[in-house]
């Protein structure tokens, strides 16, 4: 009996093997838990873009795409389970949308030869492609975000923020701690005074932090928050009447659901972003026609055009473009994860390409290379208008202070390389 079962299992594997025709883009999503408010729109956007490609273009290069979804609940143990469960299906690229899960997956994907794209999150120093062969975090990372925020302060102050007080309210985790070193370096350069206010997971309790802000009266508050922490912080800021235009969140703290609970009081709140906002792009007509009208929209279908939906869609677009690039490089439509990695390393996004995709000026133009997996690190600032209930981009995608960031990236990635005996590539 056992022998029979074993034979059947072998037969099943062999039968299933060659049928792997789909391009698999697993979505490690979280639609439950304290971070679900951010996880849902991102997962919807990610899934809808691939559905659009399937319905409109018949997949990528003639091969249909598949997006198996696996619920992680922002939990690292479930993240591992999801990774192990989906990697056998020929997963081309992982996007876990969680810095904790990213840290777990960095060594694993490298060993399994599957690329990992952590767009605007994860380990910042993974931007150094010489050390991190399979990790990509283009087009921007946490340290770029911190620098863009400081640059915005410089702009609004005529280039001088010497002596100003800046407070960082951050999620007390690997994610929230990331920008501290950059902000400290920038403080040395620009002469502002930095104070640090950690908020513990999940972030519902912030009374003491905001009491301290009320007492210290910083000129500006920068926030690295996620999930329910954002709403609470913005509400608390409104309660102590902190001027919203002096309150800047990172891109994970700038979605509709973060500001709406505070109502009109949130008007003027700012957020850094690396892609455009709103639904005023031709691609949304296609999504309406090919996805929504056919009843194929992911989730409840009520997130289309929100900030994080756009981000999920943008992530999917970058993955699809990288897959196309990989198909061109290797001359085959049926690509493997290793080929996908090559495609990501050779990815070039131009304005013309984005316009052709129906996403003009949706994000910065950039080119990935073997050394630089982090892109140019451009970022813009969006501002919330409570009356219209809309985010709008109030600046161009400007550069961040690479003079400060690059040495930090090199130092951190080289210490990782030394710890793990990694030989540098791209020489």
């Amino acid at each position, binding site marked *: 009996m056992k022998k029979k079962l074993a034979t*059947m299992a072998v037969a*099943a594997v062999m*039968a*299933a093997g060659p*049928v792997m025709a789909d391009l698999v883009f697993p979505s490690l*999503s979280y*639609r*439950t*838990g304290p971070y*679900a408010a951010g996880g*849902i729109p991102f997962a919807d956007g990610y899934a809808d873009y691939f559905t659009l490609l399937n319905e409109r273009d018949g997949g990528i290069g003639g091969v249909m795409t598949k997006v198996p*979804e*696996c*619920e992680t*609940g922002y*939990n*690292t*143990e*479930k993240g*591992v*389970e999801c990774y*192990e*469960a989906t*990697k*056998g299906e020929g997963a081309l690229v992982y996007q876990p949308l969680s*810095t*904790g899960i990213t*840290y*777990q997956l*960095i*060594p*694993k994907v*490298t*060993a399994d030869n599957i690329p990992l794209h952590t767009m605007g999150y994860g*380990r910042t120093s993974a931007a150094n492609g010489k050390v991190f062969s399979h990790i990509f975090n283009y087009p921007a990372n946490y340290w770029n975000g911190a620098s863009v925020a400081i640059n915005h302060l410089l702009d609004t102050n005529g280039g001088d923020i010497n002596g100003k007080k800046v407070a960082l309210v951050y999620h*007390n*985790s*690997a*994610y929230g*701690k*990331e920008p*501290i*070193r950059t902000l400290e370096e920038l403080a040395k350069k620009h002469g502002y005074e930095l104070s640090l206010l*950690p908020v*513990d*997971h999940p972030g519902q309790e912030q009374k003491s932090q905001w009491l301290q802000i009320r007492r210290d009266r910083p000129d500006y508050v920068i926030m690295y928050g996620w999930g329910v922490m954002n709403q609470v912080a913005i509400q608390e800021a409104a309660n102590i009447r902190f001027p919203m235009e002096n309150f800047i969140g990172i891109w994970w703290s700038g979605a509709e659901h973060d500001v709406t609970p505070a109502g009109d009081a949130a008007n003027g709140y700012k957020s850094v972003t690396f892609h455009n906002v709103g639904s005023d792009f031709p691609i949304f007509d296609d999504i309406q026609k090919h996805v929504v009208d056919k009843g194929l929209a992911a*989730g409840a279908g009520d997130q289309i055009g929100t900030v994080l939906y756009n981000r999920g869609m943008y992530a999917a677009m970058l993955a699809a473009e990288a897959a196309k690039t990989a198909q061109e490089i290797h001359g085959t439509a049926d690509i493997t994860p290793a080929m996908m990695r090559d495609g990501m390393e050779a990815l070039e996004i131009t304005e013309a390409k984005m316009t052709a995709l129906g996403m003009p000026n949706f994000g910065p133009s950039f080119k990935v290379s073997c050394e630089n997996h982090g892109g140019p690190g451009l970022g813009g600032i969006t501002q919330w208008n409570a009356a219209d209930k809309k985010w709008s981009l109030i600046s161009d995608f400007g550069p961040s202070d690479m003079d400060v960031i690059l040495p930090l990236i090199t130092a*951190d990635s080289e210490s990782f390389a030394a*710890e*793990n*005996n990694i030989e540098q590539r791209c020489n």
Partner: protein
Amino acid sequence: MFYREAGDYKTSYQDDGQTFPIKFDRYRYYFVLFVAFAMVPLLINDYWVNAIFLPFLIYSIAAIGLNILVGYCGQVSLGTGGFMAVGAYACYKFMTGLDIWIGGVQYALPPINIFFSVILAGLVTAVVGVLFGLPSLRIKGFYLAVATLAAQFFLVWLFNKWSWAYNYSASGQINAPEREIFGVAITGPSTEAWASYLFCLVIATITAIIARNLTRGASGRKWMAIRDMDIAAEIIGVNPLKAKLSAFAVSSFYIGIAGALFFAVYLGAVEVGEAFGIQKSFIVLFMVIIGGLGSIFGSFAGAAFLVLLPVLLKLMLADSTDQISGFATTMSWVFMAALVGSVGMLLVSTLRHRSLIAGAGIYWIFAALASFMAYALAIGGMGWPTDIVAHMQLVIVGALIIIFLIAEPHGLAQLWRVAKEKLRLWPFPH
């Protein structure tokens, strides 16, 4: 018939006092060990190890540790997550080379072998556990639970704040570098599935055997005496200070080992707030409650239950597949028929007895559940939205805890015990 004491003659005290006095039980135990050590390592892949076996073994060690404290000694603890964190960070420091600063000069130990790092991490946790166990000499019950809760929050805060503990890394994450035993990688990304499995299995087996013998011996009897009535125990000569603190020490040693393995072998990278939060304390406590207080087998059963259940629910409900073999399709029809049949019989039984569970009702409920499970697995998963499945999982685990607390407060271990009692008389129960 086979499961009985009769005919199994014991000729020495040692034989008489062994863990499994019944021959059948003994051979079953050897068989389980044989399968676990010799057969499973040949058959498993990354998925089985990382999603099922490693969490099962590691949580089992943690559950044994907590069971010693809660189940045997009667001291409630909600600090399990914090103690696991101590084990994880201690293991990290030992495996990367412990550094000590005295007067501005750094003294560093060389990195210690991973096996000894894990054991040392357990010892460090035992010391910390004794410190946080001191309040148990004055307070008990809910008050002690609150005191251990303080340990949980304090330790998590400490490892977030104290950058020495995470070697001053920018993000506060700790990463397990590659470490080997006899040239085989145990931690790190290029670990073979069987290697990490066997490493955890060896430690789990040793710790379980030690725990079993501790609890059968003098120290275990002292713990149980304290649990059952501390004043009476004191009167008959049990020193409560020694008994309680030794329970805290042994329990924390186990939990520390579990934390070290959890970080170094299972996850490889850990962040204290996320991995060792209050959630962890609760889940290990649930394992102990569902498995059975005061039972080593129960610790394994509870860990298996809470590790397997989410995976099983996910496979049954959330997954979906396009390719179903003809055999599976046929089987799914059979199971579907069984499901319809048992639901029908349940309805009939409900109408007849005017009660859902009277008569054969309870059996039809189980039959319906079983046929539904079989059906879902046969068709490769129901393909329901992942968020609904995640919510259902919370509901089901919560409901099971309530059911166990009401119907069988001694957990799965008691069901097992009852089954063994019945088996002893089978097939002539009178």
